[in-house]
């Protein structure tokens, strides 16, 4: 469904991604793990079009999206939940969700379809329904994460890019969020999950890529990686 081939992305003259290749099939949850500064966020931003690679190509559903603008990529079905949630804090919960549906055009952008998807989001995240008139900036961290995910779902994505959904959340809330990620996946959305918490990531995803300073150094099935000595030492703290 999504493939990256030798993708290089730079900040100025510094190469943050040094030729990354990945394959994600429809219906999977794939994790991307790595230490601080490994290039996880850069990878997601390159896929969603916020950054443009200098080399390599990105193919989504058979279409080359390497140099497309972010607003086009979301229309094609990739929705990015950014690091730090980035809800529109001065706007209400409802307005944030409406903005999530901004990219929808033609069939599927009618009031009725949007209402249907709102109902779906509210059934996944009942808290958001209670708080729909509240400015998003007044939500708790966990609620903001849920809003960011709900907002992303409002574009009816085929694929969801999640950047550290557990960041700064209490363990109870993290469990909730990850249960919902699996639920979203079961309903048919492919997920690429970036996580610092390798335990959590490998227990959620079926496969994973391990990133180190802009390169993929390991990849494989999650169970396999959980047993890998290198992974256990570097990422699982064992």
């Amino acid at each position, binding site marked *: 469904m999504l493939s990256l081939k030798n993708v290089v992305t730079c900040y100025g003259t510094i190469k943050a991604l040094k030729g990354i290749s990945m394959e994600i099939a429809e219906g999977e949850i794939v994790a991307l793990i790595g230490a601080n500064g490994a290039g996880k966020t850069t990878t997601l931003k390159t896929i969603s079009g916020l950054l443009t690679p200098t080399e390599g190509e990105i193919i989504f559903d058979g279409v080359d999206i390497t140099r497309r*603008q*972010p*607003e086009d990529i*979301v229309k094609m079905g990739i929705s990015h939940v950014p690091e730090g949630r*980035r809800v*529109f804090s001065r*706007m209400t919960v409802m307005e944030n969700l409406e*903005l999530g549906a*901004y990219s*929808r055009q033609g069939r599927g952008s009618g009031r009725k379809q949007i209402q249907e998807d709102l109902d779906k989001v509210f059934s996944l995240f009942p808290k958001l329904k209670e708080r729909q008139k509240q400015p998003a900036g007044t939500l708790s961290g966990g609620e903001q994460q849920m809003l960011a995910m709900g907002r992303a779902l409002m574009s009816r994505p085929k694929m969801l890019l999640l950047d550290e959904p557990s960041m700064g959340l209490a363990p109870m809330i993290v469990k909730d969020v990850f249960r919902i990620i699996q639920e979203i996946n079961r309903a048919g959305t492919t997920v690429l999950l970036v996580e610092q918490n390798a335990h959590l990531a490998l227990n959620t995803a079926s496969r994973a890529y391990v990133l180190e300073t802009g390169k993929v150094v390991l990849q494989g099935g999650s169970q396999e990686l959980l047993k890998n000595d290198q992974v256990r030492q570097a990422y699982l703290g064992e």
Partner: protein
Amino acid sequence: MLQQVVNGLTLGSSYALIALGYTMVYGVLRLINFAHGEIYMAGAFIGLMASQVAGLPFAVAMLTAMAGAAVVGVIVERIAYRPLRKAPRLAVLISAIGMSIFLRNLALALMGPQTRAFPIPFEVKQLHVGKLRISSFDVLILLTSVGLMIGLHFLVQKTKIGKAMRAVAEDKETASLMGISVNRIIAFTFAIGSALAAAAGVLIGMNFNAVDPSMGMMPGLKGFTAAVLGGVGSIPGAMLGGLLLGMAEVMGVALLRSEWRDAIAFGILALVLLVKPSGILGRNLQEKV
């Protein structure tokens, strides 16, 4: 006294129209569009041409001026600001001032330096309400300004494009992830701000029966002052700032002398910048990184 309030409201509502353009552009670009006063001037000229040369009725001439100025605003954004989106602030500021000088000189070249009369194209009546004397043109200024402000409020708060504007103002990167074309929304913001300035240009041009290439300077500065007073970036702030400034000027002139008019306005600007740079309704100007 009540008479002064009416005069202050009339003056203030036109300041508010100008202030809105500053504040909306600041909202999406964090930049003061120093060419805004010249867009106001361009709007007045287009309105003059539409009314005098083409002989269009008032409402149509007004709409023509607003549409024409919107186009000017979009072009200004395209050539003076968009190429500098990632440039340092100082470069953008210089570009803005350059654009302002260019437009003023363009108007000089095209229209000549003389002040042209811009007569009100219909008969103005004096209305008497108790002891108050209000001209029907003052009423028109008030109604037009208030109508435009209500329309703007509806646009920004309720429509899809208005929500996109607010999203862009808050976080451009995330807005683009929603599928919003950020450049298109910025251009749209310039168009709306410029159209409002043009409405003010036509109303004030007719009120003083005068249009000339440098007419944008003083109202431009007043609009800027009003925007800062209300809190730059805040739309209700621009409306409030405009009305307060108009009121302060009229009251000040009534108490002191008319020479004090501009001194009062800029005294207020200096005071606000010293005491509360974020203005009355403004959020803290400190940007989160």
